[in-house]
């Protein structure tokens, strides 16, 4: 319906007709608007800017009496967009799935608050979504498509002059791009990986704050967060105002975790706070030992299964058990966040049982191979005796007269 109306209405859109003939900045909107999501939904220039697109005379088409609002001031852009985007009844006509609380959230954001205070540096809707060439967030060419978000935020947040005026660092994008999350999103193209908006929010963008950091991480790492929340560390972090997960893992520059982070070795995080001889120090050592023990048993089981494979044995059941052991190792690493050696050993113990079961299956299969080979050689020996007996019989018959002329 809408494209048809749009096609029919197109000759009457004098905004586009005139702006296409102009040069420079004023020509831009007409060309960009061709790919704009609003254009595709049948909206025209006048739906945002007012005026009379049917009037041939520019003074009439852009007359204030016709509701022409022209180009809104940067500070007014959020409210300008919100005329429609905060109106559920209006939005339902075009895209019922699109939320209508963006403006309300924006007002609570760092950007929104500064904008309301008259700061002209801060991001408004067009800073992230673009203008006249606005695309759906699901469109890979949109600046707010998942893989494009870090780059979009970086436009401002890597601008040294701009950030300096607001006392903000400029290294977040660099750190993020080299983090485990950034590599997953930007290099591997995993759209499920977190980007700036996943932790800071989009329209409501703000710093998570020390206490909220754990909740932000818990969106994905729920088990680790739950275990941490029930651990003795939680109270200590709260009392000291420490940002939970961030204390060990960092924020934008989060790296892939390693077992070296656990325990009391040179790369251990535990030993940074826990003195040798303290209970925390011993717990760290014990947790690391539990992880290493499970890893070693899993490796042993893998070698055992591999050996059986080498002999051509089918080890699918054992591989499934080994997979279970590996899952328990992952869980054990998560359970480290309980900082309870009992809980860690409980989960690791299940992994050990699975690893041992898999190893025994591999060993049993190898034993079976040797049993088969022994059986083979006994059979071959019996066959050999039989063949020798046959040869003896044949020779004795041949001596009596092996052949005759036919």
């Amino acid at each position, binding site marked *: 319906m809408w494209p048809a109306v749009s096609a029919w209405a197109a000759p009457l859109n004098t905004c586009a007709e005139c702006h296409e003939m102009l040069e420079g900045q004023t020509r831009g909107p007409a060309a960009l608007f061709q790919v704009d999501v609003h254009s595709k939904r049948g909206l025209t220039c006048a739906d945002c800017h007012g005026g009379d697109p049917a009037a041939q005379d520019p003074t009439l088409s852009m007359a204030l009496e016709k509701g022409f609002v022209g180009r809104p001031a940067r500070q007014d852009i959020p409210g300008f967009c919100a005329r429609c985007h905060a109106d559920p009844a209006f939005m339902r006509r075009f895209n019922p799935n699109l939320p209508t609380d963006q403006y309300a959230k924006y007002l609570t954001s760092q950007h929104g608050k500064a904008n309301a205070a008259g700061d002209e540096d801060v991001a408004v809707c067009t800073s992230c979504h673009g203008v006249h060439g606005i695309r759906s967030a699901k469109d890979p060419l949109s600046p707010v498509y998942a893989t494009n978000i870090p780059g979009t935020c970086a436009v401002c947040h890597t601008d040294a002059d701009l950030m300096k005026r607001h006392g903000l660092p400029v290294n977040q994008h660099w750190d993020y791009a080299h983090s485990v999350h950034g590599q997953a999103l930007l290099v591997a193209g995993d759209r499920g990986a977190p980007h700036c908006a996943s932790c800071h929010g989009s329209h409501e963008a703000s710093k998570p704050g020390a206490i909220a950091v754990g909740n932000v991480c818990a969106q994905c790492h729920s088990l680790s967060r739950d275990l941490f929340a029930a651990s003795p560390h939680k109270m200590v972090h709260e009392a000291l105002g420490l940002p939970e997960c961030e204390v060990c893992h960092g924020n934008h520059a989060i790296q892939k975790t390693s077992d070296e982070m656990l325990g009391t070795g040179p790369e251990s995080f535990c030993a940074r706070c826990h003195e040798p001889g303290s209970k925390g120090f011993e717990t760290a050592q014990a947790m690391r030992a539990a992880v290493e023990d499970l890893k070693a048993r899993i490796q042993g089981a893998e070698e055992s299964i591999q050996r059986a494979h080498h002999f*051509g*044995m*089918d080890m*699918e*059941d054992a591989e499934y058990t080994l997979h279970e052991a590996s899952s328990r190792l992952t869980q054990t690493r998560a359970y480290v966040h309980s900082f309870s050696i009992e809980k860690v050993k409980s989960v690791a113990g299940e992994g050990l049982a699975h690893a041992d079961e898999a190893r025994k299956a591999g060993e049993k299969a190898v034993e079976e191979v040797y049993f*088969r*080979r022994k*059986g*083979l050689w006994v*059979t*071959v020996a019996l*066959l*050999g005796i*039989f*063949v020798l007996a*046959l*040869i003896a*019989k*044949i020779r004795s*018959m*041949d001596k009596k007269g*092996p*052949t*005759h*002329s*036919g």
Partner: protein
Amino acid sequence: MGSPMGARERLKSFFQARYNLGGLGELVTHKTVPVHGHSLWYYLGGTTLVLVAVQILSGLLLLLYYRPSVGEAHESVRLIMTKVEFGWLVRSVHAWAANMAILSAFIHMASAFFLKAYRPPRELTWVTGCLLFFLLMGFGFTGYLLPWNTLSFFATKVGTEIASSVPVIGKVLSTFLRGGADVGDATLSRFFWFHIAALPVCLFFLLGAHLMMVQLQGMSRPLSVRSERAMPFIPNFLLRDLAAWSVMLGIVLALSAYYPATVGEKADPFAPTPAGIEPEWYFLWMFQTLKFFPGHILGLEGELVAIVAMGLAGLVLILVPWLDRPAARGQAHWLAWLAGFLTVFYMIGMTVYAKWFIARH
């Protein structure tokens, strides 16, 4: 209790009194086997026969657990290999004996060709032998799919697709083999039916005819052999055959123990065709020939030309006794020898090249 000989005599007289076994006894005992420098090749027929017998016995045992449906086939084969007592041995013997039977039959056929055993009056022995060889390949093709693993699934998909290139009846043949438009549950049921019902019935009659002809006409003596020396088939040659069969059985058992049959990954019809898909080794030379054929030859589909050419080659093979006229007159013509040599060289060369090509890619 009488002596063993006494018991044997009593049993013989029991049947003799009721049935006229004179002719049958004569049929069994009259056969002689020529003795000369090429006698070794006479053992290949017997080894092929005993390998087919091993196939039948092991196949019957596999039927106890195998389930011919897409949902259960792979699982049942895995069960046989991992849980059923000596299931691994039975299946591995079945798989290895199948390969050995094809190899043995091929050598048997090649030796019959080069020793010109097909010359009159043994033309029909050759024809039934050729048909038996094709039948064994049919057993291999249909049996390959039964474990329903990735390799066999896609190889069958390619194989039945090739069948659709056969002129005139291609589409019908492909649909008949598949039991539908694509390889699926119906194909598995159909291949199982071919493998354990249709082909065995054909085997029974063809093998019966082949053995009867050999029994009635005796073994062929090569043209180059002038000596009339021979030995009785029973017991002299049979005892030698028994020794050869025992060695063959030992080889099959050793291969089964050291290289048991694999189960592979369960076939996923929705997965893309994986790299390295290959048919059984005895189809490789044909597979590689098809790959070498250009897309179009003289305006015709290259695949169609290749299929027709291979079909004609099969027909020529069957008609060898009538095509090699000098052999019928007792003369060995160099052209027949060269044609046979080039054919065997081509088949082996293409198989080796295909294996090398697959291993490299």
